[in-house]
């Protein structure tokens, strides 16, 4: 068996120790990690730059559109205001009480023997009602009956166009003075009529068949 002598064992040991130097290994690991991290950072930086360039493009777009949008928004709110105001004004216009048709109805009801001397009318906007006071002098063989005829006629005529119509005598008193009607002297009476009504027309009665049908449906 041949004898093998290692005369360089000290040098070999030193070389092995140098190779296993933890600081050197650590430095190598650090450099490796650093490289990986740098690469990762570079990749992230590239993505960030790309995102920022996208953001710049969008910002430019927005800067172009922004004034138009602001103008459009202002116009929208302005138009909405106009629409609402017009609607409210139309409601106001439609909700007015028209006196001319009422005066026409009163004129048609007043017979020559029931002269009017005073007319006072008011519209109550909150209660949605109209109140009128008529004063006049009725003449005839039965002056009270002439005044009552006027009241009945007013009730009938006004009831055709308005709802909740009330025509009541506030006063009715005989007068001593006589009036000449068609060459005949007639006794007279002074009347005061209070008229109250709602200017909205009376609701039309619903057909009687509808509730029955509904009832039948609910029964089944």
């Amino acid at each position, binding site marked *: 068996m041949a004898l093998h002598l290692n005369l360089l064992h000290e040098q070999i040991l030193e070389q092995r120790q140098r190779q296993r130097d933890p*600081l050197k290994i650590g430095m190598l690991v650090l450099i490796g990690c650093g490289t990986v991290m740098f690469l990762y950072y570079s990749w992230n930086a590239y993505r960030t730059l790309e995102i920022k360039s996208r953001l710049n493009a*969008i910002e430019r777009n927005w800067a172009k559109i922004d004034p138009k949008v602001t103008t459009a928004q202002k116009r929208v709110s302005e138009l909405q205001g106009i629409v609402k105001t017009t609607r409210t004004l139309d409601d106001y216009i439609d909700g007015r009480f028209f006196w001319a048709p009422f005066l026409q109805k009163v004129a048609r009801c007043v017979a020559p023997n029931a002269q009017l001397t005073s007319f006072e009318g008011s519209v109550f906007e909150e209660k949605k009602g109209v109140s009128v006071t008529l004063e006049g002098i009725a003449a005839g063989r039965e002056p009270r009956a002439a005044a009552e005829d006027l009241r009945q006629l007013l009730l009938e005529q006004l009831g055709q166009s308005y709802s909740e119509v009330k025509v009541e005598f506030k006063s009715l008193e005989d007068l001593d003075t006589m009036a000449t009607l068609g060459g005949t002297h007639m006794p007279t009476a002074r009347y005061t009529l209070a008229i109250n009504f709602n200017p909205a027309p009376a609701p039309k009665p619903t057909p009687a068949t509808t509730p029955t049908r509904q009832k039948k449906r609910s029964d089944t």
Partner: protein
Amino acid sequence: MKLTKDQLKKLGLSTVGFVFLLYVYFTFFLGPLNRSRDVALAKINDRQRKLDNSKEEMAKAAKLEQNAKAATTRFGALRAVNAEGAPIAWFPPRMKAFFANEQIDKAVARLEGNTALKPEELSGWLRYNWIIDLPQADYGTLGRAIADLENSEPLLCVTRMSIHASPDAPQFQHVELAAANLIEKK
């Protein structure tokens, strides 16, 4: 394998160096980069949402412009009913001319006052209350005149009417009208 004291020292030093490297990397490099990217992404989302909304907003405005044509025209017409300037300067002469045209002379309109209107939509409008005195009118002419007034002045509403027989001139009646007129604030 057994580590010598010197080797342990070096290993510790390497570990410290590694931890320091990680700290510097995440705190001063990757962290701020990620934050700035997140901020940019958030801004992009925000702007994109605004852009999408703006398209909708502009389409809505265009559609509303078409739909509100009738309302805009009507609003313009209603505004044009009232003249420019202080109402006290133009309303009484207008009423005088109107009733003179209806064969009712000596019409006088007086301002009673003005009030703000309750509906929020009419915050830009005021209600002017007037007293219109017609000392010489006859019932038939008055009826026609009031019909014309109610039709030609849509923003005017007669709230009270008083008609009395004139003792001096039996052919005439003394009429007093209380009217409210809506006028835009200027």
